[in-house]
């Protein structure tokens, strides 16, 4: 990147050790971490949650919570040490020399302030000489540069009026406002969908080439690392496991842990285009509705003509833009005992259809038939006989368990009020916990005392204990670490098969869906864009949107 390297590194971290004040004696958050960053370099920091990678970023930004204490080590920026506690010094560093991009683009922006002004105030705060008018012009210029269309009209729009990808673009524009030397990007794309993810990564790469900024990219996703970084640091339990140039580290990982991280990435199997073309010749009329594989078995669930829009309400008259309906005439069918996948971007309506099927939301119109019982999804009271028959597993296990109920209480409640009739709650709960690899000693604990993977296992146990015939799993692994993801998917698959439960698996991850599902629906803008058996979707489908989703996967992890 830099024409005059070798030069002195822009940032050097030497032997950094961080401990949590409250828990003295426990393992440090960071132990003896050293790294150096060149101008114009993208450095990937990869590891699972709890590896200390975000704390490393926060330490460089001076944003560690006061509970953390730096026991040893120095951080040198341009040769000058950064002291974690000197706020006066930070005023000249933060935003101007080192800025940040966070994971959650929704949470990073003040929901009550329009996008333009949020960027404008940053420009004014980080450039001493700029006038209001210049700041506004600069803001428009930056927002255009990061790829937000029609910014002249949308300058005063609020964050919720932008799509996820556009919000993250705005966050990037804000990070660039003070013309920083370093951007700490903490999981900048993990809240985005495959196609958008790729665009954002390329935008970052372009910005590095244009402005010679350096980026520290904190992530848990090997795909992201392989896509744009120059060098990588692999972290685990606060220590650096391995570091080196990206290409050599990915091609020849030295450490077992790095290899296991690489192996855990779900891979997409795509046949080569020639083969694909030949096969499509036989399929002049691709089926849009997935039929059951074996004739004679009736599908367990048929949803027809489901429509849903989020409109109406007090201030509907004040609306400034046309509302797009969340779902438009959607038909979905679940084969008995099979796993059906729904793939789509956020906002495509994939979660909404799951929630309607689970009865958590009412539809505007349509008909749902579960196990030959027909009901009207637009009336919330019409499915009383189905209580417990459809269970749901949510994305974030931390938010779907009652924090004030012990694990035992949560699970027993599910047995008591589910569809299954059970005499001895405790022994049934215990057997289920054994089956899902949860120690029975966890029973009296509360959710916050469990790891993410354990919590999601509890959620799966809770769903299974109710004795459902259908499980709707909405992104059940995307809040979990890569290595845990594989186990959870395996557990789900085994348990659902054993019990003959049909599952609707909602995900944005094509590789995962391919691995798991027998048939797949692809959602876009509230409609079913493409549908078919897994094989059809991945090898024969000519739908341009399906193709773009498949092509958006990082090449390294596509076979």
């Amino acid at each position, binding site marked *: 990147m830099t024409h005059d390297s070798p030069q002195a590194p822009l940032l050097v971290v030497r032997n950094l050790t961080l401990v949590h004040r409250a828990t003295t004696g426990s393992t440090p958050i960071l132990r003896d971490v050293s790294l150096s960053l060149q101008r114009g370099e993208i450095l990937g920091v990869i590891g699972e949650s709890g590896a200390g990678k975000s704390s490393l970023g926060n330490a460089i*930004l001076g*944003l560690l919570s006061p509970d953390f204490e730096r026991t040893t080590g120095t951080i040198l920026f341009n040769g000058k040490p950064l002291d974690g506690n000197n706020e006066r010094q930070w*005023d000249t560093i*933060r*935003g*101007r020399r080192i*800025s*940040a991009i*966070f994971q*959650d683009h929704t*949470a*990073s*922006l*003040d*929901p*009550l*302030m*329009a996008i333009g002004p949020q960027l404008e*105030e*940053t420009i004014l*705060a*980080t450039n001493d000489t700029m006038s209001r008018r210049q700041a506004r012009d600069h803001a428009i210029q930056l927002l255009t540069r990061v790829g937000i269309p029609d910014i002249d009209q949308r300058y005063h729009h*609020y964050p*919720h*009026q932008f799509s996820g990808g556009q919000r993250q673009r705005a*966050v990037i524009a*804000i*990070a660039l*406002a*003070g013309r920083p030397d370093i951007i*700490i990007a903490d999981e900048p794309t993990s809240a985005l969908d495959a196609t958008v993810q790729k665009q954002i990564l390329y935008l970052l790469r372009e910005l590095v080439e244009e402005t010679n900024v350096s980026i520290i990219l904190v992530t848990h996703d090997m795909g992201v690392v392989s896509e744009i970084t120059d060098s990588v640091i692999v972290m685990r339990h606060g220590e650096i496991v391995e570091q080196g140039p990206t290409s050599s580290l990915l091609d020849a990982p030295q450490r077992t842990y790095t290899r296991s991280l690489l192996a855990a990435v779900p891979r997409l199997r795509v046949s080569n285009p020639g083969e694909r073309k030949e096969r499509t010749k036989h399929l002049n009329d691709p089926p849009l509705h997935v039929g059951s594989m074996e004739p004679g078995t009736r599908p367990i669930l048929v949803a027809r003509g489901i429509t849903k829009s*989020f409109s*109406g*309400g*007090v*201030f*509907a*008259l*004040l*609306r*400034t*833009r046309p509302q797009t309906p969340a779902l438009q005439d959607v038909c979905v069918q679940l084969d008995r005992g099979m796993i059906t996948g729904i793939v789509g971007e956020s906002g495509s309506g994939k979660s909404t259809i799951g929630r309607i099927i689970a009865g958590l939301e009412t539809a505007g119109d349509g008909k749902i038939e579960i196990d030959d019982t027909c009901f009207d999804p637009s009336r919330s009271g019409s499915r009383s006989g189905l209580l417990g028959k459809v269970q749901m597993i949510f994305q974030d296990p931390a938010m779907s368990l009652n924090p004030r109920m012990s694990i035992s209480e949560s699970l027993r409640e599910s047995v008591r009020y589910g569809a299954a009739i059970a005499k001895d709650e405790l022994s049934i709960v215990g057997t289920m916990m054994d089956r899902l690899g949860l120690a029975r000693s966890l029973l009296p604990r509360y959710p916050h005392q469990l790891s993410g993977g354990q919590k999601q296992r509890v959620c799966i146990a809770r769903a299974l204990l109710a004795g459902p015939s259908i499980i709707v799993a909405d992104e059940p692994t995307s809040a979990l670490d890569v290595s845990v993801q594989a186990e959870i998917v395996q557990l789900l698959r085994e348990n659902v098969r054993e019990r003959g439960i049909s599952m609707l698996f909602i995900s944005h991850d094509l590789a995962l869906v391919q691995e798991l599902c027998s048939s797949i629906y692809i959602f876009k803008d509230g409609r079913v864009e493409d549908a078919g058996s897994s094989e059809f979707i991945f090898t024969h489908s000519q739908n341009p949107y399906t193709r773009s989703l498949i092509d958006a996967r990082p090449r390294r992890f596509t076979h």
Partner: protein
Amino acid sequence: MMTTIIGRLSQAALLLLVMSAIGFVGIHSVGNPVYNIVNIETATAEDIRNATIALGLDQPLWRQYLLFMGKVVTGNFGTSYIYHLPAFDLVMSKLPATLELASIAMLIAAPCGTLLGLLAGRKQGGAIDRAILKASVFALSIPSFWLSMVLILVGAITLGWFPSGGRGPTVSLVGQEWSFLTVEGLRRLTLPALALAIPNIALIARLARAGTIEVESQDFVRFCRAKGLSPRRILFRHTLPNISIPIVTIVGMQFGGMLAFAVVVETIFAWPGMGKLLIDSIQLLDRPVVMATLTFVSLAFVGLNALVDLLYAMLDPRVRLST
């Protein structure tokens, strides 16, 4: 839009109906107003019977209620048994005094409480936070009669800056008599307004503190720091709007409460407000005035709620667009 307005209006109508029934039965079961109207020493049984018939109290309760409701629909709450004036006019004549007292109390309480809450929440567990929390427990738990008397003791007797009670001279504006337009009127307003404001400052401060702690822990505040904004700008430009919705709600509710139920303060400071009128009327079993006051208070709450909803939409663009 239309459905929401219709929904709101029918809710309000239902609320008024229920409230009127409860109020009517309640005041009926307290006692017979006839004994407060005739002179109990000299009245004969005949006098009492005549008075009972004249007031319509000889009818069964349901009949009385229906007759009352029939008149209310035409806007007539009846004539006060005691003052012999139309009940609703009587209530309205007390409105300016109550309104100016409640408004000034809230104008003191809302900014002070919010500011204290922001300061406390910004450094949770710090010296300022602990001081404000302790003071707020104190302010919330002391009875208002004691607070009022201490204010009189300090402000009126020891310092002698403010009069100890009464409304004093008024100035006419848009057909009503107001006292906040003169210096003397403001002096007289100060102590009762403070007595009403202090518990509200504590309440709002605690609410603002909780909101500040929650908002400051969110990512966008961290992002604001990362992008180089000053702590003051973050506090006032980002945190404050984000904590304002619960504050607006509680300000609306407390303001409604102050209109009708500031009885203790109004009594101690001899302030001729609606709370005092309500309590006096209940004691004298002046049914038309009690009913008129309760109806007005219910209407005020419905109106304040609608106002709070409109403020939500002004404060939060997401409310404006989605719900």
